[in-house]
């Protein structure tokens, strides 16, 4: 635990990726395999399920520190991180320990989950009495499940690869699945992670591990430069960019696994896709997008249409999937790549060949839950650009442009081929900042999270009000945010804990990808991916947009055939 706390501190303290890499490798070389197993798990983004209600932690810490609730809250506001606040407020340790990371997690932390509530306080107190401040930070981070420390998954992958003397891409694949939410990595798992590569590893029929996802790069070019940058369209495979959940369907050893891009196993969330997967031949991995898909007329041969992401959220958020929900919100997998077939890893084959094989597989299966993401044809980039104008009405985000010769790479890379995402311009609205909240982590104690509003009437209406409709916290530079923060402090009307209401003086152009009706929002609408495009210092508050303008952006209720 001490060594891991020291590693955490070291990773946290330095901004240099070289130093981080060196610290990671030093730890992995020196630690017991059982400790390394957990260290890799957490640093690469594995999350423990919540062990103790944070409410209990807060109240125990308040009692231990002799602080009233308001003062704890003031402290938390200033720190912006619960685990860190707890670590800083508790009285100094009275004892010591010499247990390693794995022992702490397996013998002390994990058992907390099933402990009767009345025994928890004494057990917790006895635990933190043994821990120094930096160990406490790690301890509470493990307990509250948020473990960001400024190392990327890639850096952890590289460190593991260096320590094991193996290829980083291989490690990346092994890491998938290693990080499952209920994971319990052992010394043996870690040994497998750093073991030398074996030829049999390519055909891991008994494992549900997906491949690392190949990610696209944004393409931000004016149309007239496409030809020069990309060559003619015939070198490229062009598809729609769907607004759904990127997923890999893994069919091996008579079983089906469905993985989201966040490497979360979501098989249970989409039983109809699991059923479809069972119909696929063994040793087959498909890459595609989970979307809600609906036909309007069952009999007429209507191919159906993708539904807004908001519909998909109804499926994600629900604990139990009743028959009504499954009927009302049906999903399909829009497939666009085949990564494994007949147990063979196809990722080094060219894009076009993989696509042809994929279409064969889909054609032979003819299952209503497995659709082929259509390939778009265009003689020229201008032609494709014209087709792209229909994207919004088709409910897609733009186009994907994939090199026909591209291999399926690992992550956001370009070394073995490239995928571009050519997104349509976002919706734009000029909105007024009315609430601000302090951020977390690096932005703790900066007012960085904002609520935006539009007018509920035209300027002539004297009694018109500002109606909040979106929250955004990205898009400003650090310097702009610092200036906005200063204005917020000067124009504060009221403070409610970490939130301030401010005099409406700041106008921002917000961009968002989608808009849908939502009874849960005051304004009656919900936006997708809202962010600040620019600060409209030139625009007076009275000239910000109105709710009417916003509502006009809602998609027409009429379905459009694709």
């Amino acid at each position: 635990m001490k060594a891991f706390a020291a590693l955490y501190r070291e990773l946290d303290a330095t901004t240099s990726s070289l130093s981080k890499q060196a610290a990671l490798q030093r730890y992995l070389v020196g630690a017991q395999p059982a400790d390394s197993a957990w260290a890799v798990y957490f640093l690469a983004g594995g999350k423990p399920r919540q062990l103790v209600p944070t409410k209990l932690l807060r109240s125990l810490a308040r009692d231990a520190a002799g602080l009233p609730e308001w003062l704890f809250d003031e402290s938390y506001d200033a720190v912006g991180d619960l685990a860190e606040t707890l670590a800083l407020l508790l009285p100094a340790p009275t004892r010591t320990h010499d247990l390693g990371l794995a022992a702490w997690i397996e013998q002390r932390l994990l058992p907390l989950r099933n402990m009767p509530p009345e025994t928890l306080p004494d057990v917790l107190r006895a635990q933190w009495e043994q821990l120094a401040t930096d160990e406490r930070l790690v301890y509470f981070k493990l307990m509250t499940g948020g473990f960001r420390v400024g190392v990327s998954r890639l850096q952890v992958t590289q460190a593991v690869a260096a320590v094991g003397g193996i290829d980083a891409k291989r490690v990346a694949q092994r890491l998938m699945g290693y990080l499952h939410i209920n994971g319990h990595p052992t010394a043996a798992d870690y040994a497998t992670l750093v073991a030398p590569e074996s030829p049999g590893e390519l055909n891991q029929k008994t494992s549900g591990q997906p491949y690392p996802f190949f990610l696209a790069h944004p393409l931000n070019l004016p149309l007239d430069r496409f030809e020069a940058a990309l060559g003619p369209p015939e070198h490229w495979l062009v598809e729609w960019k769907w607004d759904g959940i990127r997923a890999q369907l893994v069919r091996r050893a008579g079983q089906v696994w469905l993985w989201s891009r966040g490497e979360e196993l979501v098989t249970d969330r989409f039983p109809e896709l699991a059923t479809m997967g069972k119909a696929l031949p063994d040793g087959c991995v498909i890459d595609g997008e989970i979307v809600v898909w609906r036909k309007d007329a069952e009999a007429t041969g209507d191919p159906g249409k993708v539904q807004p992401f908001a519909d998909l959220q109804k499926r994600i958020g629900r604990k139990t999937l009743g028959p009504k929900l499954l009927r009302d919100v049906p999903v399909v997998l829009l497939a666009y790549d085949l990564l494994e077939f007949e147990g063979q890893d196809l990722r080094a084959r060219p894009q076009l060949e993989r696509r042809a094989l994929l279409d064969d597989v889909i054609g032979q299966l003819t299952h209503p839950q497995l659709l082929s993401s259509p390939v778009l044809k265009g003689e020229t980039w201008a032609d494709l650009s014209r087709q792209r104008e229909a994207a919004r009405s088709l409910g897609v985000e733009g186009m994907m442009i994939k090199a026909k010769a591209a291999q399926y790479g690992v992550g956001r890379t370009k070394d073995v081929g490239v995928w571009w995402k050519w997104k349509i311009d976002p919706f734009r609205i000029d909105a007024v900042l009315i609430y601000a909240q302090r951020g977390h982590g690096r932005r703790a104690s900066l007012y960085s999270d904002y609520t935006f509003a539009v007018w509920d009437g035209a300027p002539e209406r004297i009694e018109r009000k500002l109606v909040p409709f979106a929250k955004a916290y990205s898009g400003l530079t650090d310097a702009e945010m610092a200036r906005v923060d200063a204005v917020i402090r000067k124009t504060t009307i009221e403070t409610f804990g970490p939130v301030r209401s401010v005099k409406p003086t700041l106008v921002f152009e917000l961009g968002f990808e989608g808009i849908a009706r939502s009874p849960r929002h005051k304004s009656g609408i919900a936006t997708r991916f809202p962010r600040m495009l620019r600060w409209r210092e030139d625009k007076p508050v009275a000239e910000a947009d109105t709710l009417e303008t916003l509502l006009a952006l809602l998609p027409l209720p009429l379905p459009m055939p694709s």
Partner: protein
Amino acid sequence: MGALSGSVPQRSKGLRLAIAAHQGLPGRGACRTAVDEMTDLVVARPEGLYCTAGDFYVDPWKPVSRAVITHAHSDHARVGHGHYLAHTHSEGTLRARLGEITLQTLQYGEAIEHRGVKISLHPAGHVLGSAQVRLEHQGRVWVASGDYKLEADGTCPPFEPVRCDTFITESTFGLPIYRWPTPAALALEINDWWRSNADAGRTSVLFCYAFGKAQRILHGADASIGAIVVHGAVEPLNAVYRAAGVTLPPTLRAGDEGVNAQLLQRALVLAPPSAQGTPWMKRFGNYADAFASGWMQLRGARRRRGVDRGFVMSDHADWPGLHRAIKGTGAERVFVTHGSVAVMVRWLSDNGLQAQGFKTEYGDEDAADKPESSTQDGVVNAEQASHDPAQEANAADTS
């Protein structure tokens, strides 16, 4: 004594009362004690903290005729006052910063009387020459603490609790999350960092305020590790400390003979925060950087600062220190200035004291949060290098 007993300009009492009515922060406890110039020995005025009976100010931020200065940091000792009264050890720094001033100095414990008010200075432990101002008038005793720190650091006489009825305290770090490591632990941490950099052939650049913190770091530095190089803003203050009898290890300037690449590989470099990112830094090639400040207690502040390492070092009292100091005075009334005013006032009121806020210009209430930087212009001079809590806060938050 002579300087303060000259003629005193009379002011309109009506105006004073009108101004006084606007003082004090809203919040719990604030309304408990009406600010009344007729009975309070010190009130907050637009010019600064004002001693009513003595007709002089403590650390005023606007030009006044008579000012008692607690210490020579730029937010407490400003230009343009008619007469200055300060501790003997502040003389060097005050004259260096403010030029030609009419200055009278006192030793700790030495008292003078002005218009019936007995004035004496007592160690505040903040920086060299820092003092609490004790004011006694018709049996009442008020103490204005300026900035203070309880831990003895070896570079100035440690804080001494002074019994009083009413205590005016700062609150820069007035939240329970702020608890400082001991000076010994801190020195160990800094020396370990320096040594491991030196062993790796890297210069250790430590950003710190030139007045106070730099000398504390020097005082605790293990000079056997390597040479110590200081920025041009630091060395004049080292001279003031040495002249006052404080032992500091030998220091070099970056331009001195013998300061070459080989020496720098094992060197500790002390520079004001304003030097970060300036061309002055280019000479160090391969270096690790760190920042010494109380704000470094928080990971968010450390990360925003963008240095490799943050050392938790403050010349202000931490939360336990503030409350130990307040308790030590035996005061029943407490006025809280710059820092976490609202938090301190509420906490003290909840704990049975009469507490209220004084609005000052020594630093905003939200100083710790203010992200905009006043230290990014790349120009380094003694004025900037001198300490200002608001500036320190800003610097701590600059990415």
